[in-house]
Each structure stands twice: as structure tokens, then as C-alpha cells.
């Protein structure tokens, strides 16, 4: 009889830079998914593999140097081990850095779980001249050891086998017991005895581990004992006494001695198991760092790297979207063809609303190629080890503002220079270990100039600052980071005051060549996470926005007015063609709408075509579709069986229809403008005018800014539909149309709008990322509201202040710029409270 297949829970632990995620991928392959640990933003990767007929479920714990309760990652790793009680724990150890890695191994052993030591990167250790006796190591630690080379996929099967056999033999698991020295051991012994009398505690925890942690003054364990043990208070006061006695006697805290003993034991084991066969004076990493961290070359290389990333991802990625956009557009057209067809002056809701939603979705999906490149580049930066050097070089600058050396990358991605995207920016904040700095960075990334803000800048600068274009672009692309730094410091001193701040102790890992599969893995994982999280929410929001800008809609009279107007136009059209035209029947009644669609599609297709060949192909396609309609759109001039034909009837229909088409477009636009103005959003725009006038915003601007909330890239489009063309219906450029309707506008008005856009709240997908990365709705709302308040205050300052002082737009900008620099400089010098002591 077969044994029933079991599910074996295995946790993968290890220090940072030990190649933990590589081993995790190696063990589980593609069978994995990402979740979050409950209530926090730390990623929890879960995968599985089959071994000897059993299903082994593997959970990747956060990489930690230790298992104290001081950092979130350590608490998570520890809680998982304590509460989920995995059957086997795999400790990934960097073979070339054995001593420090064993420090964690000892702590894992103390927790009393069956442990497998994965001696990773043995090839690197060998190259550095270390020869490791794995059998001796296994004997000394009392745990199985499996050597691997993660990035070359070596040792996978052995590791899997070792995990399974450790599980089978877990009853016989007898690891070493670290000796903390006589004085401490006698205290630990009596504590252990006391603790082991409490059955509730012993259900989950090892008495040895509890005793050691209590002597280390671990606040979480103190809390745990207090809550779970009936004699908690007694135990804790005993610990307190013992600690005080120890400190009095040895003039140092027990945790110091404990750490020292762990390191000593690790040192001894390394001495016994590792032979140094050759001494390598300088490694490649040393030599690279001599240049990369050099006082002069360091910043130059850093700037080049950042510029290169920006070029590759934002500039070239943007070009890539030119190839992917047609695919998205084709999808849209496909959906459009399934929906009810267009109406003459307005579209049925079953068409308009789904299309509005799809437009919202594809607008976001359009950025996916950029994300793919960006995430791949970030993965490369992380895997090579250059990320740590970036932080090393830049930390000094950012620390003044309560940020971290690692804040630079998110800010760049968000668009410090013009054109970025806040979504990957916020996602990149994961790398920041200091919680306070991480939160501050997440909150200021959306203030950067994302790509969607640019069109509005360009439009308004072109209109009002035509002669100082370059200067204004420079102002805008630099003012945002200046303001953001000051904001970061203010947040740091106020709302983020109580957040955890971590000391800056950063390992500078040896440089590694990243592997293709490793990079792709991470890249796809992150893009998928983005797509999965975003799509559903964007659909909902786009639907809501549609309702807000379309309802309550026109009243009966106005609706009727458009109905009458359009049927009159159609009437005129038919009269012009006359009854004896051979095409009359073809464009009569419902067929007129069919022709309208055909006409629009043909014009659209022709507009995109550049070469003669593509034009001919389009002609052929449309001819095949409906030859009779084709004759009309060709103005009656077409070839048939090699003969050139001039068809006067068709020409007549074409001429009449052209007129009708223009009238139709005009009505559609007018009706749409009226609908927006009367919509909930439009009413809000009017409602806000008494307040926003101090910022120079009238209700039209309010509507455009409000509707930008769904997607900033639509700000120009919304302005376009609010500022309609004049009735003569010449194709007037938007700039002209705005000038016509807003004769009172000065550069100050434009400057106000530009700056408000610069401070505009994050788009919905970014807000979702903020929610994901902060694990709190509260912070998401904060990230939405504070930029509005900040932006509004700034614009009122500029507009009202500028008007009072009689400044020109440029003067106001310069004055504001200087003011911003002054504020930021003052912020830099406000000392943080000495929270690290």
C-alpha cells in the first residue's frame, strides 16, 4: 500500500546577499506565487516542488542578518518560524562569508527547528582561495550541509534530497548547542527550567530560545511571555534581576556577551572547517570599487548610470510603445466592433461606457513596455551590487532631508528629470531599509514629473512663455525635486515622526554578474504584479469617471434640440443628393449610419498610411468590404477592371456627405461640451470657482484638473473638449481656442496651472501602489490629499501674490524658485532629533 502523499512546509532563511532568492527559484522553478505577509508590505514568495512523492511547499523568508525584534523583516521571519512551525528550515549561507552567516545559523538552531545548511556560492569561495570541508562543517554543527552554486543551478537535486531526508529523520535531529560561557549558562539553565514548566509556552517555543532571547532583552519575547504565561510577570522580574546582576558583575549587557560568543563559536568552526589555500590580495570587487566609489569618478559613473537607465527605459521604452500601441488599439477596435454602433450625435451608453473603460485600461497598459525595461534594469542594479554603491555615494545629500541613499532610484524613476512614472518609482521604494525614509520617499515620488504631466506643460509654455521655453522647462523640471526634498523633511518632522528609523549599516556586497533568468524572473514577476493589481481598479474608476462626466446629462429640451438639428441636417443631405441618384437607396435610413462608420474608418486608415503601397492596400481592403461605399469615398473616381471611371452620382453623394459629416462632428462636440458642463464634475467645477479663483482657476480649468484625476494624460484632451472650436468649424489649434475663450489670461494663470499640475495628486494606479507599499488606506488618502493642499497653497501664493506685487509670469517663477530653494535649504539644516543613541 502506498503511503499518502504529504505536504511538507519548508522555510528558506538566510542573510542578505547569500543568494537566497536564487536558491528559492532553483528549488521551486516556475511554480511559485507572490503574496504579502499579513499587514505588512514585505513580499512573501511561496513555491513548491515534488520530492519522493511528497509535495514540498517552500516559503521564502525575508533576508535578515539576525532574528531580533528590532526590524520588521526580522520579526516576520521569526514569527513565521515560531507560529507556522515549518517541518524543515533551509539556511542559505554564503560560503565565501561563512563566519558572519553562521551567526544567523546559530540563532536558527536555537529555535529548535530541523535545519539544513545550504552552503551556497561555493565556486566564489573557491576562487577566493577558501577550501571548505563540508563533512566536517556538518559534523561540527550537527546538521546536514548541502553545497550549491545557485546561479549555475548546481546542487539542486542534492539539496532537495537533503531537505526530504531531514524531514524524514527529524526525530533524530541533534544540532550543536552553543555554549555561552559558565556564568550565562547557569542563568540560562535556571530560566529554561522555569519556562519549561509552562505547557502553553512549550507548545510553540523552545525553552532554550526563550531563555536566550529574554537575556538579550528582546521586547517581543517579553511581551509574548507576559501574554501567554500565567507566571509571566514572575519570569520577567527574574530575568530583570538576572540581567541587572550580570551587568553589575561584568560591566556589560548580556546581549553583548551573547553576540560575542556566537561570533567566537562561528570563528572556531570556520577555523576547523575552512582552509585558506591561497591568499588573494585584492579581489575584483576591490578594484572595481576603487573606481566606482572614487571621489571623482564615483559621481560621474553614477550620473552616467542614471542617465543610461533613463534613456533606455523612458526614452527607448517610449519608442517601443509605438509598436505595442497598435496592438492595444486593435484590441480596442475589436471590442468597439462588438458593441452597439455609434449614434449620429451621441453614442448609446452601452458603447460609450465600455469604450471609456477600455481607453482607461489601455492608457495604463501602454506603459508596460517601459516597465519591462525599467524592472529589468533595476533587477540588474540589485543583482550586480551597484545599488549599495549608489546609496553609499548619495546618502549624505539625501540624509539632510530625512531620506536615504536608496531614495535616489525611486525619485529618478518617478521623473526627477522630465518624464518618468511614479508607479515603478513607488515600487522601487521596497529597497529602502529605513522605514521612515521609505515612507517619505513613497510620498514624494508622485511629486516628480511623470510623463503624463508633460503634455500640459508643453501646451501652456508654448502659449504663454514661447520666448523663454527652455528656461521654463528647466524651472519646472528642477522645482519639483526642490519642493519634494523640503516636503520629505516636513513629513519626516511631522506625520512620519513616529515611524521606525533604521541605522545606516549597509553591506557592500561583492559584485556579481547577474543571470539572465534571474533578471527576467524578477522583471516578469513585478510587471505581472502591476498588471494584476491595476486592471480591476482602473476598470472601476474609469466607469465612475464616465458617470461623473456624463450625468445627469442634457434636459429634454436640449436633447430634442440636437435631435431636430441633426435630422434637419440629414434631410438637407438627402435633398442635395436627390431621388434619382443611383446611390440614394444605399445611404437611406439606417444605412446612413453604416456609411458613416465606413467613412470614418476609411479616413482614419488613410491618415495613418504613409507609403503608396499601404495606401493601395487600404483601398483594396475597403473596396472588398463594400464596393459601393468605396466608390463614394473615392469621390466617384476609381478604377474598375483597368478602366478609369468617373462616377458623377458618387461624387455628388461624397460632396453632400462631407458637409453632413462636418455638421455631425460639430453637433457631437457641442453636445459633449454641454454634457460635461452640466455633469456632476462640471457642477463641481463651478462650485469650486469661488475658492479656486484665488489660484486663477476658473470653472473650465477646474473641470480639466478634476477630470485629470483619472488619468493626467487626459488633461489636454479634456481642455480640448471644453475649449471647442468656433462655429465656423475650421480646425483651430487648441492654443488658439483657449486664447480666444480666455482673453484675460496672463502668464500668471498659466504658471498657476503648470505648478498645480506639477504637484498633482498621484494617478489611480500609483495610489494603488502606495496602498500596496504602505499597507494602509490611510497613507493612500494622505498621498492623495496633501499634494492638493500643497499645490493649491503654492498656486495661490504665486497667482494672488504675483498679482499684488505686479510680477510678470517669469518674475513670479523666479521669485518662487528662489523662495523654494530657501525653504529647502532651511529644511536641510533642521536637525533630526537624535533618535539613534
Amino acid at each position: 500500500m502506498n503511503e499518502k502523499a504529504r505536504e511538507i512546509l519548508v522555510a528558506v532563511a538566510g542573510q542578505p546577499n547569500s543568494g537566497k532568492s536564487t536558491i528559492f527559484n532553483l528549488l521551486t522553478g516556475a511554480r511559485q506565487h507572490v503574496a504579502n505577509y499579513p499587514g505588512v508590505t514585505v513580499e512573501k514568495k511561496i513555491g513548491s516542488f515534488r520530492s519522493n512523492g511528497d509535495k514540498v511547499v517552500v516559503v521564502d523568508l525575508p533576508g535578515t542578518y539576525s532574528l531580533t525584534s528590532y526590524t520588521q523583516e526580522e520579526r516576520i521571519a521569526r514569527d513565521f518560524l515560531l507560529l507556522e512551525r515549518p517541518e524543515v528550515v533551509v539556511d542559505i549561507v554564503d560560503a565565501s562569508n561563512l563566519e558572519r552567516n553562521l551567526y544567523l545559523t546559530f540563532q536558527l538552531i536555537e529555535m529548535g527547528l530541523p535545519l539544513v545548511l545550504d552552503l551556497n556560492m561555493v565556486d566564489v569561495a573557491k576562487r577566493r582561495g577558501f577550501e571548505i570541508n563540508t563533512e566536517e562543517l556538518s559534523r561540527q554543527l550537527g546538521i546536514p550541509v548541502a553545497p550549491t552554486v545557485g546561479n549555475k543551478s548546481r546542487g539542486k537535486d542534492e539539496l532537495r534530497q537533503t531537505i526530504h531526508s531531514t524531514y524524514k529523520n527529524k526525530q533524530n535531529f541533534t544540532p550543536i548547542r552553543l555554549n555561552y560561557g559558565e556564568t550565562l549558562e547557569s542563568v540560562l539553565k535556571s530560566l529554561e527550567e522555569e519556562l519549561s514548566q509552562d505547557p502553553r509556552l512549550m507548545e510553540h517555543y523552545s525553552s532554550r530560545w526563550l531563555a536566550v532571547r529574554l537575556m538579550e532583552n528582546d521586547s517581543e519575547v517579553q511581551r509574548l511571555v507576559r501574554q501567554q504565561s500565567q507566571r509571566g510577570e514572575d519570569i520577567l522580574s527574574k530575568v530583570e534581576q538576572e540581567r541587572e546582576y550580570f551587568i553589575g558583575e561584568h560591566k556589560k549587557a548580556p546581549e553583548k556577551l551573547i553576540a560575542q560568543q556566537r561570533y567566537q563559536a562561528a570563528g572556531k568552526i570556520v577555523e576547523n572547517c575552512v582552509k585558506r589555500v591561497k591568499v588573494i590580495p585584492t579581489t575584483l570587487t576591490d578594484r572595481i570599487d576603487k573606481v566606482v566609489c572614487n571621489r571623482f569618478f564615483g559621481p560621474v559613473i553614477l550620473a552616467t548610470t542614471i542617465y543610461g537607465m533613463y534613456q533606455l527605459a523612458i526614452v527607448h521604452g517610449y519608442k517601443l510603445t509605438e509598436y505595442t500601441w497598435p496592438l492595444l488599439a486593435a484590441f480596442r477596435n475589436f471590442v468597439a466592433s462588438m458593441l452597439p454602433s455609434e449614434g449620429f450625435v451621441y453614442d448609446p451608453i452601452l458603447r460609450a461606457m465600455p469604450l471609456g473603460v477600455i481607453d482607461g485600461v489601455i492608457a495604463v497598459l501602454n506603459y508596460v513596455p517601459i516597465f519591462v525595461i525599467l524592472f529589468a534594469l533595476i533587477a540588474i542594479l540589485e543583482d550586480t551590487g551597484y545599488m549599495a554603491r549608489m546609496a553609499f555615494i548619495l546618502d549624505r545629500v539625501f540624509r539632510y532631508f530625512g531620506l536615504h541613499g536608496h531614495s535616489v532610484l525611486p525619485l529618478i524613476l518617478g521623473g526627477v528629470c522630465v518624464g518618468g512614472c511614479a508607479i515603478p518609482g513607488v515600487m522601487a521604494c521596497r529597497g529602502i531599509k529605513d522605514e521612515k525614509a521609505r515612507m517619505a520617499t513613497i510620498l514624494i515620488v508622485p511629486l516628480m514629473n511623470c510623463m503624463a504631466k508633460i503634455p500640459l506643460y508643453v501646451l501652456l509654455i508654448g502659449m504663454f512663455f514661447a520666448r523663454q521655453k527652455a528656461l521654463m522647462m528647466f524651472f519646472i523640471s528642477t522645482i519639483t525635486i526642490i519642493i519634494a526634498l523640503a516636503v520629505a523633511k516636513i513629513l519626516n518632522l511631522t506625520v512620519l515622526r513616529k515611524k521606525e528609523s533604521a541605522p545606516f549599516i549597509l553591506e557592500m556586497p561583492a559584485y556579481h554578474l547577474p543571470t539572465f533568468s534571474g533578471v527576467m524572473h524578477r522583471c516578469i514577476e513585478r510587471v505581472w504584479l502591476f498588471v494584476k493589481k491595476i486592471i480591476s481598479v482602473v476598470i472601476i474608476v474609469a466607469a465612475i469617471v464616465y458617470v461623473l462626466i456624463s450625468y445627469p446629462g442634457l434636459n429634454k429640451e436640449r436633447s430634442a434640440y440636437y435631435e431636430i438639428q441633426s435630422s434637419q441636417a440629414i434631410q438637407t443631405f438627402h435633398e442635395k443628393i436627390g431621388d434619382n441618384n443611383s446611390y440614394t437607396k444605399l445611404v437611406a435610413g439606417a444605412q446612413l449610419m453604416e456609411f458613416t462608420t465606413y467613412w470614418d474608418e476609411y479616413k482614419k486608415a488613410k491618415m495613418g498610411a504613409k507609403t503608396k503601397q499601404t495606401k493601395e492596400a487600404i483601398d483594396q481592403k475597403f473596396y472588398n468590404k463594400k464596393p459601393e461605399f468605396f466608390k463614394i469615398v473615392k469621390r466617384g473616381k476609381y478604377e474598375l477592371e483597368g478602366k478609369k471611371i468617373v462616377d458623377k452620382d458618387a461624387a455628388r453623394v461624397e460632396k453632400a456627405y462631407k458637409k453632413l459629416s462636418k455638421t455631425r462632428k460639430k453637433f457631437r462636440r457641442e453636445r459633449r461640451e454641454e454634457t460635461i458642463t452640466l455633469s456632476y464634475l462640471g457642477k463641481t467645477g463651478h462650485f469650486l470657482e469661488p475658492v479656486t479663483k484665488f489660484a486663477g482657476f476658473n470653472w473650465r480649468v477646474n473641470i480639466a484638473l478634476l477630470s485629470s484625476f483619472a488619468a493626467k494624460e487626459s488633461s489636454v484632451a479634456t481642455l480640448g473638449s471644453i475649449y471647442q472650436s468656433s462655429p465656423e468649424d475650421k480646425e483651430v489649434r487648441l492654443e488658439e481656442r483657449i486664447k480666444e475663450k480666455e482673453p484675460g489670461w496672463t502668464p500668471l494663470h498659466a504658471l498657476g496651472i503648470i505648478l498645480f499640475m506639477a504637484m498633482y495628486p498621484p494617478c489611480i494606479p500609483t495610489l494603488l501602489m502606495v496602498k500596496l507599499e504602505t499597507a494602509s488606506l490611510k497613507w493612500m488618502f494622505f498621498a492623495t490629499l496633501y499634494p492638493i493642499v500643497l499645490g493649491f497653497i503654492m498656486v495661490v501664493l504665486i497667482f494672488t501674490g504675483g498679482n499684488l506685487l505686479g510680477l510678470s509670469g517669469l518674475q513670479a517663477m523666479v521669485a518662487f524658485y528662489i523662495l523654494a530653494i530657501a525653504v529647502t535649504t532651511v529644511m536641510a539644516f533642521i536637525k533630526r532629533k537624535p533618535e539613534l543613541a
Partner: protein
Amino acid sequence: MTLDEVKPGQECSVVDVHAEGALGQRMLDMGFVPEVRIKVIRNAPLVDPIEIFMKGYFLSLRHAETKAVEVVLL
């Protein structure tokens, strides 16, 4: 003397870490225990932080943190 006073290129040995709580524990975990040898490698381009070498690996720390490490020059 403290670790922030050690110049790049110089080597020293840890005497004690004068820090409590999170920072103190973190330094212990990273290996700042008595008698450990530390070599100061370099300053960052803007002087702070510094990079050190100990126990076979490289670490970077801010001056604020290195002030807590009491050392003797070797």
C-alpha cells in the same frame, strides 16, 4: 578613540560598542564585537558615510553610527 576618527587605510580593533537598543543590537549582529579587526577603506565622495572591511566583508556606515564604536589603532 572611536571608529569615525580612523583614517582610510588604517586598521583598528574593536574595544566596545556604546549603543543601546536597535542600533546597538544591529552593530552586534553585524559583528562589532570586541577584538574584531576593522580596516577603514574609504570615505564616500561627500566624506560621509565611510566604508570599512571586517570579517571578510565590506560595510558602509554613517559617521553618526561609527561614533558609537570604540576602537584602538593597530
